[in-house]
């Protein structure tokens, strides 16, 4: 008798679980779809803030950046992607001061690990969301991050 009951119990329990599964998939069928229609939806594309597209050095409206040229990012980089070229000048009080001449960044060898951004003590560099980085030759990927004629933001 026990076996007899089990047969019917199994059949109905199985049928019920199948119906629950079908209800779940129907909910998903009616949900908004996740696919991004990429080139068409460029204007409305939503990218997560933490996405690492390429390294940038933000400049403010006076063309000033925060990089002091310490070179910690260059040391932190495992791929030798960053090259910080600095020079020293003597100011009015006779103190020697280092300043940034050129911040060179090779996108082609970057692995987007974010170690440089974490190493920076002044938050001078960050990763932007811009991801359309394809170019026709590798030389184009080597970029200068500080703008022409920019200077250090004074505190």
């Amino acid at each position: 008798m026990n076996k007899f009951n089990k047969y019917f119990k199994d059949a109905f329990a199985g049928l019920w679980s199948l119906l629950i599964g079908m209800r779940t998939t129907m909910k998903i069928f009616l949900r908004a779809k996740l696919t991004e229609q990429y080139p068409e939806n460029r204007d409305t594309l939503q990218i997560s803030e933490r996405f690492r597209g390429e390294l940038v050095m933000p400049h403010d409206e006076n063309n000033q950046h925060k990089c002091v040229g310490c070179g910690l990012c260059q040391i932190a980089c495992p791929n030798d992607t960053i090259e910080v070229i600095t020079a020293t000048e003597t100011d009015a009080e006779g103190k020697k001061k280092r300043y940034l001449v050129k911040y060179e960044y090779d996108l082609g060898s970057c692995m987007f690990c974010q170690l440089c951004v974490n190493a920076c003590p002044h938050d001078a560099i960050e990763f932007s969301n811009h991801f359309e980085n394809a170019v026709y030759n590798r030389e184009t990927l080597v970029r200068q991050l500080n703008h022409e004629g920019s200077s250090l933001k004074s505190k």
Partner: protein
Amino acid sequence: MDNSFLDYYNIAPVTSWINDLLCSIMPQGFAYLIEGLVIAVALILAYAVFAIILIYMERKVCAFFQLRLGPMRVGKWGLLQVFADVFKILIKEIIRLKNADNLLYELAPYVVILASILTFSCLPWHKGLQVIDYNIGVFFLLAVSSIEVVGIILAGWSSRNKYSLIGAMRSGAMMISYELSLGMVMLTMVVMTGTMSISGIVESQANGWNIFKGHIPAVIAFIIYLIAGNAEANRGPFDLSEAEQELTAGYHTEYSGMHFGFFYLAEYLNLFIVAGIATTIFLGGWMPFHVSGLDGFNAIMDYVPGIIWFLGKTFFIVFVLMWIKWTFPRLRIDQVLRLEWKYLLPLGMLNLLLMAILKVTGLVF
């Protein structure tokens, strides 16, 4: 019951007028030959068109169940994608195998597609629009639909490939088993309607669809039919004959080009055929939906042509079968056979008995 609405869109006078016209200008045999050829071309064309519609529908429905959009690039909403795929498959090379049994290897896809087209031609599309209509139509349907398993086993056997063979054996065991359930369901509905002719079954539903008239046993039969039909079409949770993860593509692993295309077409059309037969037997075929008492509503329903009713109901069932396919995981061969022999077949037999008792006592209408 006033059945005059059935003649509203009747095709039969048009077809018989064409027949008379042809017979009056040429010998009768020649006229029949021409008619046969025209109908054959029309059938094969409809077959291809429905295959394209179904493949597109399958890709879209599958995508929607997985939160994707499916094909969107070729044409508006990807409408031309399947045409592109069909043309690609038409120009592909048909590879001949060195060690295969070449005669059987090349015969198999034609056997499969022949069975599928023969079953397809039994569907009642509209009043007066049905190609094959015998007084033993249900028997004919079951007989020709089971030719397909021969083609599948031939394909697996002649390929000389163990994956193909395992797939074909699984498929053979499964299809032969589920045909029993299918037969039981058909018998149940034949008991109810009292006729074996497909057009007769449809016409007996003029005063209500079988699933409403037959209530409990008809609903049980409908569920059994959907399960067994899904298994017959080698789809859904029963696609273990072509289980990609273990057997590459099962019985059609070795096929390429249009030979593979035939298996592919037959698979999709079998889905449509299963849905079409479910529509014919349970949901009234091309009969409009009527609610007794609401005469205005019924009159509006009568203005919708029968072929739209048929296709609407059929695509609804197709959608349900796709819903099932994209919900449930694949069964193992022992589970498939246990489901059939321990659950569906006893249930089908009891249901046949129940239907007979209800019919005799006049409790089904």
